[in-house]
């Protein structure tokens, strides 16, 4: 995003709207620190600039990438899904993505509201790849950015790009939950940014999610609130592992 300095009247109204503090007050106008801006578009859409000084301008591949991972109104070209991740558990009764005995784990880098650079994302993908967890969900928008999925490496040209969030999602056997969560806990100490961590799974016949107990035993604290797929979608996915 850019500010037309010939229009800006330095009212500063826009500054608090920026989730990543990329808008600064200059001597005569406000300006945007390009390297900090994640292209979420909130300033242009909601800050109510009295002189319409915000404009997007020409965007190269890397600015478009920032936008795709930061502006929820923009679907990823590769997936047609709005937002940063995939449908994950939301359509599980139809897609059969997480079957019984399997667990979905997602590392939502940059959330809540801090943003991330892809070099931090790569620390997570490499760490998980080092224990053999390296199969990103086919619709994950990170997939086209990978240099080598086996090793978790991301293409160099993307590493310094900053986005509001990027989600590393994977599906593993329940037995691997301790290994995965411990690896995530370990890599969390190396990050410049934050992440929100998710745990999802199909319920057992007794209406429980054993993986939540496993997480609790490992010292994690599964939230009392969360998302429930009510199982109303059709056609239903076939059962089985």
């Amino acid at each position, binding site marked *: 995003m850019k500010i037309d300095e010939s229009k800006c009247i330095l009212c500063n109204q826009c500054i608090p709207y920026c989730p990543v503090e990329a808008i600064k007050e200059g001597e005569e106008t406000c300006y945007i620190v390009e390297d900090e801006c994640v292209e979420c578009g909130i300033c242009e859409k909601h800050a109510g600039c009295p002189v319409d000084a915000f404009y997007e301008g020409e965007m190269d591949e890397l600015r478009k990438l920032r936008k795709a991972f930061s502006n*929820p109104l923009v679907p990823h070209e590769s997936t047609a899904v*709005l937002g940063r991740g995939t449908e994950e558990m939301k359509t599980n009764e139809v897609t059969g993505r997480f079957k019984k005995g399997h667990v979905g784990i*997602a590392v939502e880098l940059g959330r809540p509201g801090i943003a991330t650079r892809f070099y931090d994302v790569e620390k997570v993908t490499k760490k998980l790849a080092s224990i053999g967890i390296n199969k990103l969900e086919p619709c994950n928008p990170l997939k086209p950015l990978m240099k080598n999925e086996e090793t978790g490496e991301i293409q160099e040209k993307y590493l310094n790009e900053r986005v509001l969030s990027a989600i590393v999602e994977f599906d593993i056997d329940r037995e691997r939950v301790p290994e995965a969560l411990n690896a995530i806990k370990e890599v969390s100490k190396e990050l410049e940014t934050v*992440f929100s961590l*998710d745990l*999802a799974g199909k319920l057992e016949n007794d*209406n429980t999610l054993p993986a939540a107990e496993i997480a609790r035993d490992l010292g994690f604290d599964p939230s009392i609130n969360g998302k*429930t797929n009510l199982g*109303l979608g059709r*056609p239903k996915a076939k059962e089985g592992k």
Partner: protein
Amino acid sequence: MTHTLHRRGPYESLINDFVLFAIPAQGFNEKGSIPKLTKFFDIVIKYDPVNFGDCGTGNKYGVGEKGIRENITESSVVHAVFTDEETMEKAMEEVKEADLGMSVIATGVLDAVDEIAKKVGIERHTIEHSLGIWGNTNLLPDEEILEITTMCGHGMISSNLTQLVISNVKKGTMTPEQAAKKIAPNCHCGVFNPERAAKIIERIVSEN
């Protein structure tokens, strides 16, 4: 896209925070989903949600009811926010009876959602927990600010704007309700709960 998962706060606050939304599964049942998602929207809107929206279009405070209804597509995710279990139950029951064949997700206190589901004859399929925030947590704003900002999972509501409106309430230039409505439009998907936000702001102001 776990945009409603990481809402934070104590039970007493979260129990007044429910989101019900419908989503087609791309590649499985998105074809022909527009009338089904529209029907879902028509059902939930009857129960007077405090916010509603569609990720690709906007929310109650932006495009409004007509704008959302007329622009539903096969990749829409249609949301409604409720503040009590009774209303959530009525909306969920009618959605179930409508038998739309779309995936429907209920966000809220998991045990409460389970109880509601049982009452209306729904067996839960899959659940998702948040395991909290990790990494360089020194960067985070105060927990009370997070209780508000995490109601927009896409991070469109900045902590600085939230602090600004709280400061305005403290100065007496805004009511908590006005403050909540000032920040609500930024959450495109319409999953932000302005009623709950106003209560949190009121609590923050009274404690300081």
